């Protein structure tokens, strides 16, 4: 008896699923959003630039013209030339190669730390919203309180005292950015949990954790993606900030923050050592912000534009 019930239920569930994926010939949410995104010129330019940059970052070990550690003190802060497109740095290393490798690190930190923050924020928000009641208000009160703390100071203390470990950096930076994500997801989950598909799952006796991770979270994806594209630049900035202070990525590895900080030391003699990494960081942050804004407008056409 219960067996047949389950099969019929699964049957309806499946048909709902295909419905969601949209085989009816209409325009799905994602296709529609993508179409809207393509109309936003700045977002397209930003997205293309980022795509190019990610490809460059992946291909760096093969396309970099020099070894990123190879020093040549005779080439101390050379001007850009045909041999060294961006010139050389204070240890005679090829700056173009250094900027490429720096981008690899900066992007990796940005993406991984954002994933950490998304993982924490989404889980926290979904649990809080789904359980509701006293647990919810306690969890949200904690978030309110944490909002008031300047995390970057804690991160600085962490980085100073527990070695400048790159994995610690991912976690520490991710920890600073999950609060808003938790709030967004909680709001979404609260509105979703009264919907029929969740009630159906509940009545079938699906475990709470399965409902949260299989049914609720996938339906919050839109706002999560939008917020993540806005988290990545923030995290890249924070990493560059730490590296600039000498607390982030450690030598011989270098992120754009480290390169900028090196550039500041010699900017009176050779400004290009500062300008090229600054430009790389600036363009990336511009692109991410434009893409983020574009995605927000595309996925949430009702949302206000500021």
């Amino acid at each position, binding site marked *: 008896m219960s067996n047949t019930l389950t099969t019929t239920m699964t049957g309806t569930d499946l048909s709902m699923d295909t419905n969601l994926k949209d085989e009816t010939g209409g325009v799905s949410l994602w296709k529609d959003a993508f179409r809207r995104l393509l109309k936003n010129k700045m977002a397209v330019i930003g997205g293309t630039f980022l795509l190019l940059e990610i490809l460059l970052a992946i291909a760096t070990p093969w396309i970099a013209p020099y070894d990123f550690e190879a020093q040549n003190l005779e080439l101390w802060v050379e001007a850009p030339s045909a041999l060294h497109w961006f010139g050389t740095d204070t240890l005679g290393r090829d700056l173009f190669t250094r900027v490429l490798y720096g981008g690899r690190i900066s992007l990796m930190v940005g993406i991984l730390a954002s994933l950490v923050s998304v993982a924490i924020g989404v889980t926290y928000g979904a649990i809080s919203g789904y359980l509701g009641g006293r647990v919810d208000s306690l969890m949200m*009160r904690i978030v309110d*309180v944490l909002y*008031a*703390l*300047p995390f*970057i*100071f*804690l991160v*600085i*203390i*962490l980085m*100073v*005292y*527990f070695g400048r470990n790159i994995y610690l950096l991912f976690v520490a930076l991710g920890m600073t950015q999950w609060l808003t994500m938790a709030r967004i997801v909680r709001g979404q989950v609260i509105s979703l949990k009264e919907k029929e598909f969740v009630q159906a799952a509940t009545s079938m006796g699906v475990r709470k954790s399965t409902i949260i991770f299989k049914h609720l979270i996938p339906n919050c994806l839109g706002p999560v993606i939008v917020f993540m594209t806005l988290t990545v*630049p923030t995290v890249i*900035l924070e990493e*560059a*900030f730490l590296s*600039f*202070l*000498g607390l982030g990525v450690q030598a011989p590895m270098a992120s754009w*923050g480290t390169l*900028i*900080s090196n*550039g*500041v030391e010699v*900017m*009176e003699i050779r*400004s290009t050592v*500062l300008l090229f990494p*600054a430009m790389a*960081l*600036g363009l990336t*942050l*511009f692109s991410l*912000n434009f893409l983020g804004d574009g995605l927000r407008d595309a996925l949430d056409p009702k949302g206000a534009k*500021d």
Partner: protein
Amino acid sequence: MGLGYLIKRVLTMVPVFFAVVTLVFFTIRFAPGGPFDEERRVPPEILENLNKKYHLDEPLYQQYFRYLGALAHFDLGPSFKHSNRTVNEIIAEAFPISFELGTYALIWALIIGLLAGGLAAYKPNSLFDYVPMSISIAGICLPTFVIGPLSILLFGLWMEWLPVAGWDDWPSKVLPSLTLGFAYAAYVSRLTRGGLMEIRNQDFIRTARAKGLKESTILIKHSLRGGLLPVVSYLGPAFAGLLSGALVTETIFNIPGLGRFFIQSALNRDYTVVMGTALLYFTLIFVCNFIVDVLYVVLDPRVRYE
């Protein structure tokens, strides 16, 4: 009114403050390394005496309670690195400088931001709108540690208009405070424009216009109060950002403020100075957020806290 809410907020901050004290205290103490391990080895007898003098030989929990006890009298203890100076003295010396820098930066931000935002809202979709709004995107995307060196390069080294380091006469204060304030000017201008544009279409503005009031009177007398709400609510987080931005600005421009002390002491493992400055930062940020909340109620009679 919201008095109960405000009292409750102050009360919730007490346990948070304790949590922060505990967290920072134990993070610093559990980390490897101490204030007296330097390259030059200190003889064991002296080390013992030093440890005794600063009570570092006691069990950790005893040190913790000793610190809490002193904190209750607003005594932040002696500095480990600057002999014969207390943390209170260091803060008393460095804080006014940071405060001055932050205040100038905020004044710049408000003057530039409100003017640019007001102008853009007054003549939307004109050159007065596009030019400042494009510049503001740069202000939002580019971090202090890029804008700072670039402005040194441009105004200090190439044009030689302003001194590039130090903090004594007013010309030396222009670049640092502008650098720190630029990003906030950018945000304030966008928020001002957004707030004013939103309020333009409200009934009471239409009434004012129907009465035949001048456009500038409408803007200043009627729109500004409501239109500035987003700006006010931004000031709380802005202040927190100013503090961390000051870390970089003070480092770049070589200003003997609190931010530079914080970074140096963190690197030197000067436990008490790190603790003291971090606690001061937390307190300041809390106070600012609190003031902003109160201001919000004053400006917008619709807002009520329960």
